[in-house]
């Protein structure tokens, strides 16, 4: 069973629709016992970093998320703001501490071209850096996925960077480190390419 973490900041329905379409058994939940029982956990997220991390802490979810991510090392997938929460901190609206699973900071996209608009809204191409398994089967020249964001994650260790996209310079599109996988784009909203990425994650053997 895949637990989809429901803390009031995610498009949990779209995500469960997409995972259900792929045949996964999903449960939308904020119950730490369900996190512990799940085979895998997805952390979605839409909104402001500070409010989201506060909600996770206020709902008492942080210890269970940490336990599953860091001790039992369960496969965890973060999406959009959910990905950003994996970082140590964010500069959004004054600065906040994240879950700290990935040595990274979240900072505003700073395009090197004044024509490039922020937020980045729309479809952009992936340049794959590491963890090619996540992108298996995507058409080489048509691997666009859907982004909606103003901030992105800057990883201290380049090995964590799975893919970037170009939006006035490189913008972090996906990361992968051990059992932790995350995308800044929305696979559940990226039509065939997104479904393929979700399926690759569902099928990936993290113990191998």
């Amino acid at each position, binding site marked *: 069973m895949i637990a989809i973490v429901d803390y009031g900041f995610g498009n949990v329905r779209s995500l469960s629709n997409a995972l259900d379409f792929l045949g996964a058994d999903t449960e939308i939940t904020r119950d730490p016992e369900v996190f512990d029982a799940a085979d895998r956990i997805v952390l979605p997220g839409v909104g*402001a970093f500070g409010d989201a991390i506060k909600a996770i802490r206020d709902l008492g979810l942080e210890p269970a998320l940490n336990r599953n991510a860091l001790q039992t090392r369960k496969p965890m997938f973060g999406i959009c703001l959910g990905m950003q929460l994996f970082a140590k901190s964010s500069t959004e609206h004054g600065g906040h501490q994240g879950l700290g699973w990935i040595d990274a900071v979240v900072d505003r996209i700073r395009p090197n071209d004044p024509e490039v608009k922020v937020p980045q809204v729309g479809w952009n191409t992936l340049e794959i850096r590491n963890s090619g398994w996540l992108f298996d089967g995507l058409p080489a020249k048509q691997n666009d996925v859907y982004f909606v964001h103003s901030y992105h994650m800057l990883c201290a260790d380049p090995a964590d960077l799975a893919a970037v996209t170009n939006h006035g310079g490189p913008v972090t599109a996906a990361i992968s480190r051990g059992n932790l996988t995350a995308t800044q784009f929305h696979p559940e909203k990226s039509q065939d390419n997104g479904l393929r990425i979700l399926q690759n994650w569902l099928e990936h053997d993290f113990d191998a």
Partner: protein
Amino acid sequence: MLKKRIIPKFLVHNRRLVKGVRFHENWREAGNPVSTARVYDSYGVDELIFVDIDATPNGGIIDGSIIERVSEEVFMPFTVGGGVTKLEQIEKLLAQGADKVCLTTAALRDPGFVTRAAQRFGDQCIVVNIDYRETPEGRKVYAACGGEATDQSAYDWALRMEDAYAGEIMITSIDRDGTMSGYDLDLIHRLSDRLQKPLIASSGAGSLDHCKMALDAGASAITISSMFIFSDHSPIKVRSYLASNGTNVRSQTGSRS
């Protein structure tokens, strides 16, 4: 590089899709929202927009069951609008599967609502739409589906809404709606030069060249309705025309095909 977006826009009336001219003439039936969404998903369009045109006049919001059904059927971004005036309504629409909410009248009645919504849900999911008429005194903004004039200039209102933390600005010329006579290139050009946020150009699409001109004028996205519903131009045709004429669009050939 970020692609220019092609967005079919649908008007919802009594749970069906309709399309008229200049917001009030010549209404025509345009199909079922869910099956239409599925068809456009298979064409690989970039997003969808649904606006309930009865909502503001009747004091309601768009029917959530439509959103839930669409979200079960298509795995692509979609925006919904019509009658939204409260944060709880936005929360509900997003929970039902919408990605963005479009505010028109509510932004005019209470500009602070745009800011509160952006702070609560993130600016990326708040689209402010501006309905306006092209009058001898300039482009004047209208509320309530074109039913209520204001003194606001469309240009100034767009800048003000950007300052209020709208994530995207959509401009809709009531005079061009359903006429298929071309987008308002002058306003697109001036606003996209000035705005930091993405500009969505709406109303007027009638030919492939109209689409290209609006995107070349600086729009990040264009909406198309009559042209898709009542002419033989499909999204695939629009995209291939744009791509072969040098506009940066997605080359996706379709979804789940």
